[in-house]
């Protein structure tokens, strides 16, 4: 799984984009989105997902159930 951003509650502050170690987060006209092919849930980088940790609005960064869980390379 990757993370995704709930558009209706996101304020477009870009904090998550700046913290993402995978450059998986982009913005078009104030709409933020996470590229599920790039998101590693911060596994291999940090103990906690960075976008989730800095997002000011609760329940805005959510698990994306449409993609399989990220597997770190063995």
């Amino acid at each position, binding site marked *: 799984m990757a993370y995704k951003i709930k558009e209706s*509650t*996101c*304020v*477009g*502050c*870009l*904090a998550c984009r*700046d*913290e993402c170690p995978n450059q998986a987060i982009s913005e*078009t*006209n*104030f*709409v933020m989105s996470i590229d599920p092919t790039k998101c590693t849930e911060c596994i291999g980088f*940090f*103990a*906690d997902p*960075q976008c989730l*940790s*800095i997002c*000011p*609005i609760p329940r805005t960064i959510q698990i994306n159930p449409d993609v399989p869980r990220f597997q770190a390379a063995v």
Partner: protein
Amino acid sequence: MESGKQKTVALLHVMQPAGQKNSGTGCASSGGKGKSSCGSSAGQGDLSPEVWEKVKNHPCYSEEAHHHYARMHVAVAPACNIQCNYCNRKYDCSNESRPGVVSERLTPEQATKKVLAVASTIPQMTVLGIAGPGDPLANPEKTFKTFEMVAQSAPDIKLCLSTNGLMLPDYVDQIAALNIDHVTITINMIDPKVGAKIYPWVFYNHKRYTGVEASQILSERQLLGLEMLTARGILCKVNSVMIPGINDHHLVAVNKAVKARGAFLHNIMPLISAPEHGTVFGLNGQPGPTAQELKLLQDSCEGEMNMMRHCRQCRADAVGLLGDDRSAEFTTDKVMAMDVTYDRAGREAYQEKVELKRQAVVAARNMELATLAGEHSDVSILIAVATKGGGRINEHFGHAKEFQIYEVSTAGSKFVGHRRVDVYCEGGYAEEDSLATVVRAINDCQAVFVARIGGCPREGLKAAGIEPVDRFALEYIEQSAIAYFKDYLERVRRGEIQHSKRGDADIRQGALIA
């Protein structure tokens, strides 16, 4: 605003200010116990020439300057790294006037063009601040790029920065290298147990911390940052939000701690917590202080350090004189369409004229003050003043969006605050009781000075025990205040009136229609 879906950013963090913001005085609290004898509008006072040079045209650091000089903020820093219970980053209303709220988000290039456009239109604009709407140092690339670009195109504009302080120690060298010589840090506590009631979390070193641990990290970083800045000779102002029952008494200790670390000025601001803002404090019913509670705390800290009382707790995109926002004239669309040439010589010529006007205000005040010499009385009164700036009584009662408050005694006159009286955009009072709103806001004043006033409000004010005074129309504020006070004392002595202390007053909450 950019095209396509327009999602505006309404974020956090009390600036300063500027306003919020800004010196209750124009002078330094250098060394020794207590501060020296400069009045709130005394100008240079006991300041060293270097410090005076830095603050004299800075509306957020000098009370006297704020009547004459304007500032602007550019909203290039949307991200934040902490959460405060007085901030709701979702809130957005174009009529909302609160720190951390902004209607637009700018790139450094757009911001630079905006600065040049405003500098050309408002030649008394002397200061550019970056204060959010998040935290400037949580957006270091955008913040410092903007400062670099502005310093190149408009080198006479002073640069300043307002931060929560979490990342400050990491950027002190960069701040010094860019000649940013005014920095405001919002410090609401030095005890992490108090902080835990104000800050639910901070994001630091790639981790979200909560509880007392979060505030411990924040407090250590704030105080370290303050020490590092003052060691480099950078002027530091400390903003504190007064939250009754949480940090109101504690702010006396904060005041001592920041003074000991070399802060130049302390700005204690009232909590803004209208429920419609949706902040944690707003939703919990946490009240802000009354005018008297705020003044009492400011007065009790003033013996230690210069206090700022003219902060308007302005937005991260504010433009113009404090209390007279002109940001609507400089939206991104309008600015990008402007053909701007930066006329430094023209600005300097204009500012020279402003300087002459300002000196005339001070001279008039001092002349009037001299006539009080030898007088001694325990009486002190508050006077509300309707003004559009320039240190004169030049606003119609009915048009005033705020009143400036002066305290007068035989010791002289002093600016002690301001009260907003504009109409709420929501959840406010209906128009018919706007007079009642004004009375609540200036209820602690003996008189209100106006350029003009209608018959109806005149009678209403008298009924409330506040004397409407229009005989000083267009005159200088402080000169008139002293003249009025002499006459007031005379009337008390003759037994025409009885002096008695007035009651408390409200600090208005909520949205401002600019």
